[in-house]
């Protein structure tokens, strides 16, 4: 099945990002297609390379980047990003900044849009 995932909350502060990641890993293991992952609201902070978590903690941005390297389209909302000072220069590899039109296409094209937030 073609799935899309929408994430509203920033990393570490809220469990949403972890739940989404665990859900996506399970979906991939079952052979589902991830049509896209869209970061909105404070979710845009998930993919900045400026984060430096303690070594014994998970590195949330790198986890997303690794999923992006598998060919999953990971999109950061440009309007939400600009408002919060997130620009191309600070993003980890394999993610991109684009508009809400991308979220629209995910909502239309994916058979299920699964949202994680507060």
């Amino acid at each position: 099945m073609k799935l899309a995932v929408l994430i509203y909350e920033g990393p570490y502060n809220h469990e949403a990002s972890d739940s989404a990641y665990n859900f996506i890993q399970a979906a991939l293991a079952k052979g589902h297609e991830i049509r896209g992952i869209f970061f909105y609201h404070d979710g845009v902070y998930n993919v900045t390379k400026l984060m430096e978590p303690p070594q014994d903690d998970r590195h949330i941005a790198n986890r997303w980047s690794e999923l992006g390297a598998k060919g999953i389209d990971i999109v950061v909302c440009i309007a939400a990003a600009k408002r919060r000072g997130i620009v191309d220069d600070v993003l980890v590899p394999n993610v991109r900044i684009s508009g809400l039109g991308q979220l629209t296409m995910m909502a239309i094209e994916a058979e299920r849009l699964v949202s994680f937030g507060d």
Partner: protein
Amino acid sequence: MAGDVKKIMFTVRKPPHGSIYVYEGLEVKLIMAAYDADISVVFLDDGVYAMKAGQDTSKLGIKGFEKTYGVLVDYEISKVFVDRQSMEERGLTEEDLLVIGEDEETEEPVRPKMIDSAEIAAMMAEQHNILCF
């Protein structure tokens, strides 16, 4: 597939202004309205306060969105509903709701339509996807 227009619903459950959810949620609605989708918006729980007339955010120094919600119909978003029980629990009536545009033919002001939870639940079950803000 041509003619296969997807039903997309937005639910708004959070009160306005305490967080950015309602404001940025509105931005999504306006963009999505430009695409080929059958859009509906349902305000429930504290979300009904986003549809209350007389919001003035000037003293907060934030832009507010009453003016934009006031022209939803111009964006061709006219399936706008509020949950009756959420309204009643908060002592709100249809007269407290803001105008979201005017009827194309009669030019009468259009307000969100108040419906029961059973109707909302039935509408939810018909959707292709639902986004909650």
